[in-house]
């Protein structure tokens, strides 16, 4: 969400440790106020409040403290009630992907849009789209941590195997799967869907989860429907 409101990737990384990131002084003061209000019993030391006052008017401080207080309310409410992350309905995502197929120019742009739509809607730990180039599958777009291997040979790992067999594979537990090629220690389960067209495999969609057995029939059907939409553009 924050990215949509103009927060840069660098700032989002900096939010892991605002005290040591070079944020502008006004932003840093507001973020340190957030830390003080969220830690323990929310006591804010006088020197920090003096610093906040140097940068913000009284109405601004009220607004900033309200944001911090509101998210503490929401977070604690959601943590206490074990709130599940909200997923978007598969039909809505398929419609969005179909729109992207119609409007996106280059294949890279299309793949970028589609991984964004699926990752935002279903909160996948990792998703990537690969396109077949001769005997290799080359990654066109991904969301999630950067992955060391950018391409797989046909038959190599689960991406390469799906590229060869043309069959969807659901792996509930990657630690027991002989074909799984480990890229992330956090990955527990995987869904590999070939993109088939003209009697051949033209690409693969690979989805990974940090939870075991994360991919049920609904997830599999969603990714297969999106794969079917992509065929005409990857051929």
């Amino acid at each position, binding site marked *: 969400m924050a990215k949509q*409101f103009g927060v840069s990737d660098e700032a989002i990384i900096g939010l892991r440790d605002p005290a040591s990131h070079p944020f502008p002084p006004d932003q840093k003061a507001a973020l340190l106020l957030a830390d003080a209000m969220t830690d323990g019993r929310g006591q804010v030391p006088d020197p920090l409040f003096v610093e906040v006052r140097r940068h913000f008017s009284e109405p601004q401080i009220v*607004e900033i403290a309200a944001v*911090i207080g509101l998210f503490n309310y929401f977070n604690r409410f959601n943590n206490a009630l074990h709130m599940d992350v909200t997923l978007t309905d598969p039909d809505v995502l398929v419609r969005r992907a179909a729109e992207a197929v119609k409007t996106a120019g280059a294949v890279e742009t299309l793949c970028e849009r589609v991984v964004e739509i699926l990752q935002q809607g279903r909160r996948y730990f990792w998703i990537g789209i690969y396109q077949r180039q001769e005997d290799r599958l080359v990654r066109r777009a991904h969301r999630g941590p950067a992955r060391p291997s950018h391409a797989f040979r046909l038959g190599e790992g689960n991406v390469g195997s799906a590229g060869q067999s043309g069959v969807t594979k659901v792996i509930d537990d990657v630690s027991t799967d002989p074909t799984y090629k480990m890229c992330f220690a956090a990955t527990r389960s995987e869904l590999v869907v070939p993109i088939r067209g003209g009697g051949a495999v033209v690409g693969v969609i690979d989805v990974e989860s940090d939870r075991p057995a994360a991919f049920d029939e609904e997830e599999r059907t969603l990714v297969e429907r999106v794969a079917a939409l992509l065929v005409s553009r990857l051929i």
Partner: protein
Amino acid sequence: MGRIGRLRPDQVGADVKTLFEAFLEERGNIPNMFRTVAHRPEILTTMLAHFRAVMGPGTVPVSLKEMLAVRVSRLNDCDY
């Protein structure tokens, strides 16, 4: 699974149903938190109004407010 049941659009009154439909139209889903709070319609309607007043355009940039929201959620280990 959440500890409290989430209400569907066919389980809520007219006022909440309108709010749910606006979410579906705007973002393609109804946040689970709001489906849960819908057990108490007065709390849901005022919560949404308060959320918009706090997070919408005001006296500080919306981008700063989003950064504060991300930071607080990280500190609270809240993925939601």
